[in-house]
């Protein structure tokens, strides 16, 4: 029996060590600091800024907490992290550091790690971190919080009790981004059936993408007097922890849509969407990415990648960090801008008329002569 206990103990310890190592960044930054961020810091003009310097007034440190997922998720976390890195290149931040969240339960803990280390700005990525970010705003009143994709509803309520002076939500007109690619898909579709595979519609930005996509297709129909059937499927049947990380479901859903005649598929929703994009590309249909220019990030789908609905996260985050540095940042909501990615390999497949129409729609959205008319959240 002794031998048995020994083996068991060894295995359990081994698996726990591995489990811990699997998400090394959720540990204290002292341990994670040997990773890339310090390498980045040494490139900064200020010589050898270390984490210990963050408590100092003159050293401006920016921390980023990802949503459940990796900082190189080819999508959302990655763009935000690039924005933070951009702010370092621009000279706003002296030291940048990220923590990858392995489990939704760790949101508060990960934010607190930066708060305790004396960081000046903490960027939290994703709707899911909204509550934890607001709570941290109270605990660390001297820290500026930038919540990417976190709509600050308190700004619009009568009750001032939960108003926050140091939390800024960076939001994007996803409906406009979805509108752009929806119009593009409708104009490019030969079967006049297009689809979108999205994460849960409980998350307002996802809802705005999906509904904006529909509105865009409808607008294009109006321009070209066509009738396009738009199939938008949300992965609302699972929890927040799974809705964005289910590529297999995304691929199956995209296949079902293509069975129903769709020849352009928009994947909006992290890894789930990536699965749909990859499946569409494999089937030789048009694939449309989300958040970032996914032509660059999804090599498997690149040849069929028509465009991507872009949230211009990188400039948005960099701008807010710069504002935080010079003190002009305002609590509440900051709206960044939306766009669509280049056609890349399909440049030749997109006719000049469609290109011109897309530029016209983009200009119309920018000067507000076109409005998608999408409710901010699912009613």
């Amino acid at each position, binding site marked *: 029996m002794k031998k048995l206990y020994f083996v068991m103990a060894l295995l359990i310890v081994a698996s726990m060590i591995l489990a811990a190592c699997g998400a090394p960044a959720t540990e204290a930054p002292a341990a994670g600091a040997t990773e890339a961020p310090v390498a980045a810091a040494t490139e900064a003009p200020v010589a050898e800024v270390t984490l210990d310097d963050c408590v100092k007034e003159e050293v401006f440190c920016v921390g980023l907490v990802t949503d459940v997922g990796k900082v190189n998720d080819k999508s959302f976390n990655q763009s935000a992290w690039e924005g933070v890195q951009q702010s370092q290149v621009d000279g706003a931040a002296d030291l940048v550091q990220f923590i990858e969240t392995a489990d939704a339960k760790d949101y508060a803990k990960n934010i607190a790690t930066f708060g305790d280390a004396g960081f000046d700005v903490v960027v939290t990525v994703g709707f899911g971190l909204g509550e934890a970010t607001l709570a941290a705003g109270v605990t660390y009143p001297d820290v500026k919080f930038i919540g990417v994709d976190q709509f600050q509803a308190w700004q619009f309520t009568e009750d001032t009790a939960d108003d926050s002076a140091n939390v800024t939500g960076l939001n994007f007109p996803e409906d406009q981004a979805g509108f752009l690619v929806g119009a593009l898909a409708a104009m490019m579709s030969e079967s006049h059936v297009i689809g979108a595979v999205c994460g849960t519609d409980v998350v307002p930005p996802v809802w705005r993408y999906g509904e904006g996509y529909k509105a865009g297709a409808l607008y294009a129909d109006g321009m070209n007097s066509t009738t396009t059937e738009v199939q938008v499927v949300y992965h609302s049947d699972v929890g927040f922890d799974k809705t964005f990380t289910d590529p297999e479901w995304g691929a199956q859903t995209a296949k079902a849509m293509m069975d*129903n005649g769709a020849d352009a598929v928009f994947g909006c929703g992290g890894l789930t969407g990536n699965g749909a994009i990859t499946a569409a590309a494999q089937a030789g249909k048009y694939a449309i990415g989300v958040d970032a220019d996914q032509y660059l990030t999804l090599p498997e789908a690149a040849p069929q990648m028509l465009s991507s609905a872009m949230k211009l996260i990188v400039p948005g985050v960099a701008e807010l960090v710069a504002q935080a540095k010079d003190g002009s940042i305002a609590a509440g909501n900051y709206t960044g801008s939306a766009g669509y990615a280049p056609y890349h390999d399909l440049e030749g497949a997109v006719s000049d008329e469609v290109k011109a129409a897309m530029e016209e729609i983009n200009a119309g959205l920018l000067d507000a002569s076109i409005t998608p008319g999408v409710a901010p959240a699912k009613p």
Partner: protein
Amino acid sequence: MDWKRFGFIALIITILIGTVVYVGQTRQTPLLIITSMLATTIAVATPLTLGALSGVYCERAGVVNIGIEGMMLTAAFFGWLGGIYMFQIYGLSAGISITLGVFFAIITGGLMALLHAALSITFKVDQIIGGTVINILAVGLTGFLNRQLFFGKGSVFGGTVPSSPGVLPTIHVPITELFAPLCGTSAVCLENVQAINRVFDQKPIAIAAILLVFISHYILFNTRWGLRTRAVGEHPRAADTVGINVIKMRYANVVIGGMFAGLAGAYFTIESVPSFEPLLTNGRGFISLAAMIFGNWTPIGAWAAALVFGASQALLINMQIFRDVIPPQLSFLQESYIVGLTPYILTMIILTGIIGRTTPPAADGVAYEK
């Protein structure tokens, strides 16, 4: 054969598909809907079927295996990684790399199962705890290696995920070619034949899963090996008395089961999408266990149960595709948490014994001591 149970399952699947046909009739022909639903059902059911077969082999031999999820996840990772290694480092062709990837996945599943077998058979650890160890180990191991190999400083692939050799191709069954001449000039007829063809055009692992169901059924119930497997799972002492090596039989079946879980893992990263993401199996190993119980520890039953899970998933997807044409009285079906519960509620109904009794192997989960 448990006809009552199969009748019940067939009824449920018919209801699920029939609902979509009813809802979507204004937009799509019934045949197109049915074939599309069936194609989705079979594909979604593939990892569940293989996972459930994994459970059937283990538990029929008397070893509870809740580590299927972990075995799938580890196999998904190593199958994918093996494919990339062969493709990028050894420069093999994409086709060979993918095939080797599938074998790596199967071997990985077998090795994880060997660990489970060692824990639960040799060391007589509580089998639930042994399975839990496998699951925790899988999450840690794949997360850690995924990070170290691809994203860490000085990692093999220099901080980026290299492009994988791709996914397994769809095997085309030439139904269209065979029957198209019968259609003559009728375009509708040709469209229908193509729609039917779609159900049969599946990928290799999906096809293998269905074949393995029937092969497993034959092995378990018509061969000496199967009889011995069931004997050590029902009454190991009696089996031992007549000269069957209980330990050896249990080891062999657990490892075979692990290889099935490994093939299920290969489905995720080699057949469905060519990428690995941490935790991508998303609890399907546990759903497989439910399917196994639902199917009363038989291969065909487990497959039928997996199809119910697949069909309810297909219903969820199609309900949203036809969102605009759903009649108001059926709008509740769009609430995915209601429909998503169907298979779980059915599993509970099955467990109550209303539709035939569900009996696990008698010595399931009990370590054998001489």
